[in-house]
Structures are given as C-alpha cells and as structure tokens.
C-alpha cells in the first residue's frame, strides 16, 4: 500500500508496549493493534463516538519528551472519545480499572431487568458477555427496578423492550448517520430517557433491521425471529443475499433445515456490515407452504405428480428446433445460465433464450465503471432515474456515506423525490417519460430552457444542477430509458448502469440472447406460433407485464414447461413442471451488480425431490448427446470463459 507512507503516526505506549499508530486514531481502536480489547457498549467503529456508556474507561498519562518520565492522570478516561497523541500512555488493565468497570456495569444493570432466560439476545448479548468478564457477580440493588413498556412493536420488523435499554444511542446514531432517516431519538431525560420514534409512529426506515444487530442488549429484537430459537440452537452458514443485485454477504441462520433469520456478514467491499430490510426479513420464501416438491405432468385438465423420467421424456419430445423458447428469471445461479445456454442452444438448437422483460433492458447491457466501495470516494454523483434506497439499497448507503463523510455532491434526477433527495444538493423531479430529454440537457444536446419546460422543472434549478454535474459519476439502473442511458454514457464522468435483478449480471455474461427476446417469445406464444416454452425460476405474472397478455401467451403455447421452486401462478398453466432448489439449497455462484462473482455452498437440504436447475439441464443434455456430464457447480463455472 503506497498510501500508507503518507499517514502521520504518533508513538504511544499501551500497557508498557511502545507502538506507532496513525495520528488521531481513537484509543479504543489503537489498542486493537496489540490484540487487546476494551469492553464497549455505545462505541461502534462505523458510528461517531459519543461516550455515553463509560464502559471503555482506561488509565491515561503522558510521557515527558525531555526526561522520559511518565505522569499518569488521576482519573480514568473514556477510550472511545480519546484520540491518540504523541507520548500518550495507556493502561487497559489495572485493579482500579477493574473496579471502575464493575461500577459502570453495576449502574447499567440497575434498571436492566436481567430477563436473559426469555430474551432473544441471550447467548449473543454484549451486556451478558461484558458482565461475565468485567461485572459484579451479584447485585446489591434490592429496590424496585424501573418499569417500562415491554415488547413494543416499533414496526413490522422491530420490537422494542424499553426495560432492557441501556441508552447507548447506537440505534439513534445509526438512523442519523448511516441510513439517514433520523426516525429514532431519545425522548425525555434522566431516568425516563428512552429511544423512540416521533409520537410513537411506525419506524419506517428501509434499513431498520440493522438496529437490531447493533443493539448491545436485547432492547431491539427481530419480530420475525422472536422466540423462534435460541442463538446456540442455530446453525450459522455463510451465504449471499439474492433479493437484489447488491449481493450482500449474510449469515444464514437455520435450524432443522429451515431458515430462521438473516444477519449481516461483514464484507468491506460490498455491504460493510449492513443489510436492507428486504434482504434481512425477505427470506420467507424458503419456508413457503407453496414450495414445489415433486415433478408434475399434465393429464387432461389436471396437473398430476410425476417422476423425473416421465417429465424428461415429455420435455425432449416437445423441445427441438428454433420454434421453441426459454425464459429464465434474473436471480438464478451462473451455473444455471451457463448450462441453460449450452443445452438449449447447443443441444436443442434454439436461440430463443432470454431473461429480460423490459424493452430498455433488452437494448442496453449493464455498464459498470465503479465498484460499490469506490462510490463513496466520488466527488460528484448523479443519481439518474432510479430510487436507490429501493432498487439498490447498499449502493444507496455508499452514496450517502460519501456525502456524510467527505461531502460528495449528490445530484438526483428522478420522477419523484425519495430518500436521496434528503441529502442531495440538487433534486430534479421530472415528469415521467421525459428521461431522454433531461439526459440530453445534461449532455448539452438540448437547450436548458426547452428541457426545463418539457420536463416540468424550473430553468435555474436545471441549469444549476447541470453545472454542478460536470464530470459526475452517473448511477442508474439497466431499466433506464435506453436513449437516456446512451446519452449519459457519453458524458465525461464514470457511468454505471447497475442491473437490479439478483444475478442479472451473470445472466448477461452467460446468455447469448441472440434469438427472440422474452417479450417476443410471449407475443409469438400468444399468437399460437410458438410450439413450446420453458419458463425457469420466474413467475411471469409478477414481472410487470399486462396480465391478459401473459394469460394469452400461456394458454396458446402448445407445451409449457415450468421449472420453479414454488407453485407460482405460472405453474398452474404448465404442461410439465419441475421442482427447483433455492440458492441456499445448492452450490452455486452469483455475480452482483458491480461484477463480483460470489460462491455459495449448499446450506440446507433441498425440499422434496427438488434439483438445481443446472443439474436438470445436464441430465437432459446427456440424454440428447451422451458425454461426461458436469457433476459439480464449480466445474461448470470453470468451463465458462465469461467468468474466468
């Protein structure tokens, strides 16, 4: 690291050991360089220090530069708010400190209900752990404890237990500094202080799940996980969230083959240690009652359970030649896309294979100049035509972090104001459908006055935003109007059209898409011109197409094969159906919006007879053309040059 030489260091002494640490680093961080740990509650490395809990007390002193004598301060100081300076002497272990910590913990525990046996946090609670290591073994407090509201539903996801709260303000600082919605604050003071939303309204933050994880006690708990398991009963596995294209790293906590909860797993390059609510609380589909467990084949009007051999025979009979089509979802594994392409085009000879449902998406592939992590370093960012907190939540956090930490100038151009407009320097709300005009105004191809009039924006506002956006890093999604995307791409700065489908990027790399597009296939099917259609991992009724068109297409196609994990609405139109495993039930790799390919191992057993989609394609493939099939997901990925 070349940059490391520029960092100014100071010499400090920790527990008698001399070391050089970057100037201005907090003591609580500096001692970690020696492998020491100071007990903390309110301090969080990603939040600004406040020094509320007083748990991190250390003894400090100064070394005299002339004669080298050390003079200690008479009282301990909070390590979380003390930056290191030249000659600072720190003691993290002493009898006095043991007493201090014991005293602080005794105070914190005065009003804590100690209901650990019925607390969701019990077993993974920093207060429990710190009390075990540093606290008093028994309580001297015999008076009535403060009583307060328990199990208060702050939102659909978060439960608040005020008796357990130790007023560390981590949740409050999270909503102020990271998610930016500032929906929590301390109300009242002294003994009555409690964190709560304005007038007890719903906590509507799109990142509310994170406060559960950073809460150092059991005051904020997960409503969906409440009383479902104890932490020590859970098996925890590394996984990747596939609810959107950011590809957050998660801990997948499961018990007896069922997913119980999702926690964030630290990955500095992608999600740091945050998740969005869609990811953290959106994995119910694993335990869905409508999971498809066996193959089905249609006999007359009825779909009846069948075996794989029957279904395979029917599939191979129906699919051959260019008059057939395959439509894949955008959240399948790379291996599925690779084998689908090989099998469908290579073995069955049809080029009609596609994953895109919007015309804009079909015209322009995603272009990415910036990794997610590099977005926080951008000087100017133009967020165009997307609602970041909904479409790309983790990108939203990065953009906000850039603004919060180093004042990135953010310009927002979109069809309604959203979370980004809270901190954007310029917000342009244009009339829907005028994306191309406003993009051309940014490129100077249309006069500002004309564009302002057409898009319903005031001219000075637009002019100011255009001036500010010179050389900006553009962030948009692949579903942006194609014309607008082309114009923005030609601008000076970096251009990022991030895909929004969980593995849209992988599909784009693996699939040739040189035949009929998904929309064309459906159109042809509706006219009765398509002999067979294969739908893999997508419910055609939930992709935003007009219902009647989908119904017409599904009813008029001669043979419909559906391969999915659930009995979706499309399933009921199927001629044959195959059960498919979900990401945590199979080995696989997924490429996120910035192009990072992440591996995922099978964590829980598949439901019923469900198979990974790539295995089905391989099994069919060797029936058409006998050869040595791929037996592992990793072999498939290694065989594809696009993912090398």
């Amino acid at each position, binding site marked *: 690291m070349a940059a490391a030489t520029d960092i100014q260091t100071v010499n400090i002494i920790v527990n008698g050991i001399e070391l050089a640490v970057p100037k201005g680093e907090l003591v609580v961080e500096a001692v970690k360089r020696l492998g020491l740990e100071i007990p903390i509650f309110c301090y969080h490395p990603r939040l600004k220090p406040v020094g509320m809990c007083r748990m991190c007390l250390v003894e400090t002193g100064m070394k005299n530069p002339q004669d080298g004598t050390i003079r200690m301060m008479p009282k301990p100081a909070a390590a979380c708010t003390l930056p290191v300076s030249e000659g600072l002497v720190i003691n993290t272990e002493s009898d006095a400190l043991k007493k201090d910590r014991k005293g602080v913990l005794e105070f914190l525990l005065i009003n804590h209900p100690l209901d650990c046996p019925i607390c969701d946090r019990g077993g993974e609670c920093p207060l429990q752990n710190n009390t075990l290591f540093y606290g008093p073994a028994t309580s001297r407090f015999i008076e009535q404890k403060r009583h307060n509201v328990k199990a208060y*539903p*702050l939102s659909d996801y978060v439960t608040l237990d*005020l008796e357990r709260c130790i007023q560390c303000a981590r949740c409050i600082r999270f909503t102020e500094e990271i998610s930016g919605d*500032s*929906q929590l*604050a301390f*109300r009242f*003071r002294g003994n009555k202080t409690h964190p709560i939303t*304005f007038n007890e309204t719903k906590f*509507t933050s799109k990142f509310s799940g994170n406060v559960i994880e950073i809460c150092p006690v059991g005051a904020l708990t997960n409503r969906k996980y409440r009383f479902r398991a104890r932490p020590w009963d859970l098996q925890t596995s590394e996984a990747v969230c596939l609810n959107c294209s950011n590809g957050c790293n998660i801990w997948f906590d499961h018990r007896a083959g069922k997913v119980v909860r999702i926690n964030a797993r630290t990955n500095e390059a992608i999600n740091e240690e945050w998740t969005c609510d869609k990811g953290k609380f959106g994995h119910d589909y694993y335990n869905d009652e409508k999971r498809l467990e066996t193959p089905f084949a249609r006999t007359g009007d009825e779909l009846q359970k069948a075996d794989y051999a029957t279904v395979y025979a029917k599939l191979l009979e129906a699919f051959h030649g260019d008059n057939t089509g395959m439509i894949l979802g955008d959240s399948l594994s790379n291996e599925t896309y690779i084998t689908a392409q090989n099998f469908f085009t290579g073995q069955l000879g049809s080029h009609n294979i596609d994953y895109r449902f919007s015309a804009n998406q079909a015209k322009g592939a995603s272009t990415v100049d910036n990794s997610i992590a590099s977005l926080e370093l951008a000087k100017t960012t133009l967020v165009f035509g997307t609602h970041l907190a909904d479409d790309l939540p983790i990108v939203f956090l990065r953009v906000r972090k850039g603004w919060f930490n180093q004042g990135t100038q953010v310009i927002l151009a979109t069809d309604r104001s959203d979370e980004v407009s809270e901190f954007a320097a310029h917000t342009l709300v244009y009339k829907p459908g005028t994306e191309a005009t406003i993009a051309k105004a940014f490129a100077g191809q249309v006069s500002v006055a004309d564009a302002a009039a057409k898009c319903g924006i005031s001219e000075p506002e637009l002019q100011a935003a255009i001036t500010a956006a010179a050389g900006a890093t553009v962030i948009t999604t692949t579903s942006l109007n194609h014309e607008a995307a082309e114009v923005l791409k030609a601008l000076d700065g970096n251009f990022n059209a991030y895909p929004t489908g969980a593995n849209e990027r992988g599909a784009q790399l693996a699939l040739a898409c040189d035949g009929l597009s998904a929309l064309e296939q459906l159109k042809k099917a509706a006219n009765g011109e398509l002999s067979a259609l294969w739908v893999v991992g997508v419910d055609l009724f939930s992709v935003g197409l007009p219902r009647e068109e989908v119904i017409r297409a599904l009813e008029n196609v001669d043979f419909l094969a559906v391969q999915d994990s659930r009995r979706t609405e499309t399933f009921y139109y199927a001629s044959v159906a195959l059960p498919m495993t979900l990401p945590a039930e199979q080995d696989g790799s997924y490429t996120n919006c910035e192009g990072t390919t992440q591996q995922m191992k099978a964590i829980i057993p598949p439901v019923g007879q469900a198979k990974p989609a790539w295995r089905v394609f391989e099994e069919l493939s060797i029936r058409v053309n006998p050869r040595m099939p791929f037996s592992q997901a990793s072999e498939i990925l290694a065989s594809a040059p696009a993912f090398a």
Partner: protein
Amino acid sequence: MSELIQLGSHNERPMPPKADELNLRFSEQAIKELEGLKTHYPNLKACILPGLWIAQREYGGFLDGDAIAEVAHRLSRSYAEVQGVATFYSMYNTVHNPGKHKIEVCTCLSCHFNSAYRIRDYVSKKLGIKNGETTADGMFMLEEVECLNACDRAPVVQVGDRYFGPVDEKSIDALLEELRASEESTVVKMADQIVQVQLKAEERVGTIR
C-alpha cells in the same frame, strides 16, 4: 402523550406524517421571526430551541405532535430529533397541556421548610387538580418544580415569568383571582417574551406583549 409510551395496537402503528400532510399553523409573524432566528446560527439544528419557543407561543402554550412536526418541517430536521429536544427541557410543555396559567410551586429545600407542600395542597384542593394536571376549564395547571433560585422569598410560586413570594393562602387566593380575571395566557406571554429576547431589534415583528 404521557412520559411513558402508551401501548397502542400491536400491529398497527400510525405512519409518521409526510410533509404535505402537516397542518401548518405558524402565523406570518412567526414565520418572519423564524427566518430571522435562522440567521443567528451556523446551522438549522441550533435553531431548534428558539423555533420551539415560537411554536409554544403559536400553539397556545402546548407543544403537541403537530407543533413539533411543524418546527421540524420548517427547520428541515427530523420529527424525532425535535421531539427529543423538546421533551428534554422542562420549560417546553410537551407532556401536559398547561392551560392558560401554569402555577409552578417550588418544592426545594428553603420553600419546603417554609411550607411549600401546604401551599401546594391548598392550590390542589382549591382547583381540584393534582401535580401535573390541568383544570377542566383549561385555566390552570399545577406543577411542582425544583429550585426557582428565590429562597429569600420562600415559599415561592412562579406563574409565567413572574415570581410570587412569600405566598400564603390569602395571597394565593388573590393571585388566582387576578389570573382568572386576566384575558391573557401567561404561558403564551412568557413564550412570546423569550422569542422577543432572542430576536434582534430590527427583526421584531409583533408588539411585545
């Protein structure tokens, strides 16, 4: 709103109000004053306290959710943050509606020695209200407060920005009669005076009450 959360339905929490759902009640004078005050501070966060004083005057002495939401909206701060600030300070009336006159009885040491509790009980009995309650006609509120820094006049009672003391039953009777007869709310008057004190001379819009 009580000091502790009222437990509502377990499933339905009201949503925080959107900007266009707010019922804004600041008068033109208040808006002008707030514009003036905004220029006194480096950022809008610092303007929350004077903003709340304006709201306390405009909303008749009681900072309910609407008042707090309006201040937050006008200062571009979050609702929760402004409510946190308002509830922290006891001179903002966020918990109970103080009515027209807030009778604050000092119960600290010197006043206690000089029968502050007797005075408190007398007022309480006479008005039929307890500590922290407001009379049914919305005229008086009784509150026990900590030291008012007027031990020489113990037992002392504060109404609005005026101290009365030493008080006894007779002077309390006279005080209540006087307050009942007055048109003006001492709570609103005090809020107004605090606003005026913070404004520069050229920024004052209304007449000082």
